[in-house]
């Protein structure tokens, strides 16, 4: 078996091995740069503490950005879309069944029209 063959998709190709090699080289270069470090850095001193303009560090729970806060702007920006989409998910079993029968009828109509 040929492990280095490329995946041909008709219009293009994809070879993960070459990609991995490129990635590895970038990684090694980055690692070398990172390892050379900053000469003034010293472990275990005041330096490593978080610097908040001299204020006391707040509680850990207050620092962490919660999942609910992420993408708040995104959902707010698409409010018109989401305010229509979310209420559709009523959690009501009758509605679930209504959608099923609705889709049966819709697909049936489509298939008959474009026979």
């Amino acid at each position: 078996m040929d492990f280095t063959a490329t995946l041909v998709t008709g219009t293009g190709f994809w070879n993960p091995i070459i990609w991995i090699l490129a990635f590895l080289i970038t990684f090694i270069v980055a690692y070398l740069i990172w390892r050379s470090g900053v000469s003034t850095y010293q472990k275990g001193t005041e330096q490593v503490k978080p610097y908040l303009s001299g204020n006391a560090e707040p509680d850990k729970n207050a620092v962490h950005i919660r999942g609910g806060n992420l993408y708040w702007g995104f959902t707010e920006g698409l409010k018109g879309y989401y305010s229509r989409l979310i209420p559709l998910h009523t959690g009501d079993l009758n509605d679930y069944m209504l959608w099923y029968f609705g889709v049966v009828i819709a697909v049936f109509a489509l298939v008959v029209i474009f026979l």
Partner: protein
Amino acid sequence: MIEQIPYLAVILIAGIGIATILLKKNLIKMIMGLAIIEGAANLFLVTLGYREGGIAPIFTSAPGKEMVLPTVQAMTLTNIVIGFATTALLLAFAIMIYRKYGSVETNNIRRLRE
């Protein structure tokens, strides 16, 4: 002629079952609607195998006459048993829901949504 009557009944009965599922909010009622559709499906299957003037497909009464199709009857038997299993499972869920939610109305069983 006889072969055609049950098909009409199947459509109407299945329609009543679907209406029960869609319009009734009570879970027990909805499960009854499901069981009615189940009955309609069974009737449909048995009617498929019916041949006018045919006799029951039992080996000892074999000589001569035309028989109705046995495969659909085996299918129907299987489906009756499966139907009872699903009904029992759904009813068990309904009882459990009543214990936890205090209601079997679908508009109260909506803790999972959005």
